[in-house]
């Protein structure tokens, strides 16, 4: 973890430089979510700023992953789930929870990276091309360019350029997770959702992913669920603290970690519970 202080230091300078209020990319308003009759999210309202890293933190079962999975309507895959409220994506102002909105269209705008690397049983190239093909891109040259661009942005190109057509499963865990990031950003989504992306990785692979996420916010909005407070501190600009399905506090990461407004936030951050 010798790289960690360096990341933290750099992030601090960036965060203080970005104190000016950013434009909202996603406006969550009065969001309730139910698994069957069990209410998991209670009236969550927050504006996720564009081109920033927003971290969702809180103890297990607080609803942070549930909130993240509302953003790309993943809950629609399972029966008995219900949303109330709105999630409006700017600049076009689409409410992605609206009944007329196709969840597939939503998912094409929101990339997602999961807790464990989940490359498809295909070649490295085909993994990255998967989303592109779904969006109708078939010309070889165009695909080649997009795949290379995504792999470069995921800091994986140099390691895999000579074996693009080998199975993705031959990569190491950290490389697989970077491949999944390349897969998620290849289609130029508006927002990339990370669900504890480093929980299955070793410290070196973790710091590579963290650097990558900080780099990514130059062109996409990032939301990340993490149970690792140091990680939230190192890479996020904004932090949302959730507890028992409610959003307790949401604000600038530096301010939240040094001077939390709510006692629950302070208790959690100082390690008194969670």
């Amino acid at each position: 973890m010798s790289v960690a202080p360096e990341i933290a230091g750099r992030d601090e300078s960036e965060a203080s430089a970005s104190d000016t209020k950013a434009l909202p990319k996603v406006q969550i308003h009065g969001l309730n979510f139910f698994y069957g009759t069990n209410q998991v999210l209670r009236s969550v309202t927050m504006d996720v700023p564009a081109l920033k890293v927003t971290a969702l933190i809180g103890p297990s079962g607080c609803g942070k992953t549930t909130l993240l999975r509302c953003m790309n309507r993943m809950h629609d895959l399972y029966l008995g789930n219900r949303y109330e409220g709105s999630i409006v994506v700017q600049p076009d102002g689409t409410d992605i929870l609206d009944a007329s909105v196709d969840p597939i269209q939503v998912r094409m705008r929101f990339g997602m990276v999961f807790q464990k690397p989940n490359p498809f049983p295909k070649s490295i190239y085909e993994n990255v091309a998967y989303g592109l093909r779904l969006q109708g891109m078939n010309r070889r040259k165009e695909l080649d360019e997009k795949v290379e661009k995504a792999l470069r942005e995921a800091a994986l190109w140099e390691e895999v350029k000579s074996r693009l057509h080998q199975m993705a499963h031959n990569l190491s865990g950290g490389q697989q997770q970077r491949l999944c990031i390349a897969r998620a950003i290849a289609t130029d989504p508006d927002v990339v959702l990370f669900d504890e992306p480093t929980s299955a990785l070793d410290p070196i692979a973790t710091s590579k992913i963290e650097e990558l996420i900080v780099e990514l916010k130059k062109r996409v909005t990032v939301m990340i669920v993490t149970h690792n407070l140091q990680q939230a501190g190192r890479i996020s600009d904004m932090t949302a603290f959730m507890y028992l399905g409610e959003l307790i506090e949401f604000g600038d990461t530096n301010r939240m970690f040094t001077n939390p407004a709510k006692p629950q936030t302070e208790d959690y951050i100082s390690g008194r519970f969670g």
Partner: protein
Amino acid sequence: MGSSRSASSRRLDQGLESVMVWVLRAGGWASVLVTFGIVITLVKESWPFFQAVPFVRLFTDTMWTPLFSEPQYGIGALLAGTLVTTGVALLVAIPLGTILAIYLSEFAEPQFRDWVKPMLELLSAVPTVVYGYFALLTLTPLLQKIYPDLPQFSMLSAGMIMGIMIVPYVTSLGEDAMRSVPMLLREGAYALGDGKLGVALRVVFPGAFSGLAAAYVLAISRAVGETMIVAIAAGLQPRMTVNPLESAATVTAFIVQVSLGDLPHGSIGYQSIFAAGAVLFLMTLGFNLAGHALRRRFHRAT
């Protein structure tokens, strides 16, 4: 006192455990011994045959007439029957079985699946003699309405019914393999905006391929070794042909036919069925080894 009792009960546990280990070990060895027994019988009984008939004649002769006064030993005539009926069966069972497996694993409601799967598995519990007469008395007349020149005994009819019989093997194993593909993999594809069919075909199917390959290999072995259906419905005349519209005997049908007759023990005709059996055994062994290799290759990939 308490400690001595627990010590004695521990001794009992250990005694029971070593007995169980021996029982399980014996069970494991039993299957190996039976296999060896079969191999030894096959080799011992077909040995005199290969003393009298040079091995190459199996492949240079063009007819299989070991019971004639001027016998010919072209096993190709029997293998053709086996391979054609197996081929027809696989053309039915692999597409049908795979589609059913995909449907049951990815699309069917859980209640429906729990109801259909046992029904389907019942198909493989039907006695093969029933299948054989079903092919001969029901399917063949139906096929003759479409193609009037179809003979009473045909490899097409027997092969199709054999295909129906092995559909449950493919479906059951295939569905298990597809359901064991992790949900995380499916979610990865959904998150990119794929639909249900796309996820099933592009992610779940390749992810389950090692299990599906095992299912296909089992189906092949089952079809190659199937006896009653082909003996009843495909005909008993060895014929070197690849046309499924003709009748022909398979290796297994020949073995049944000869063993039901009154050939003297030790005659060359009697020994020929062991030679045919040995060839069949080598074939299934080959398929199984190929299946294993295929499985290992894809297993590493997933």
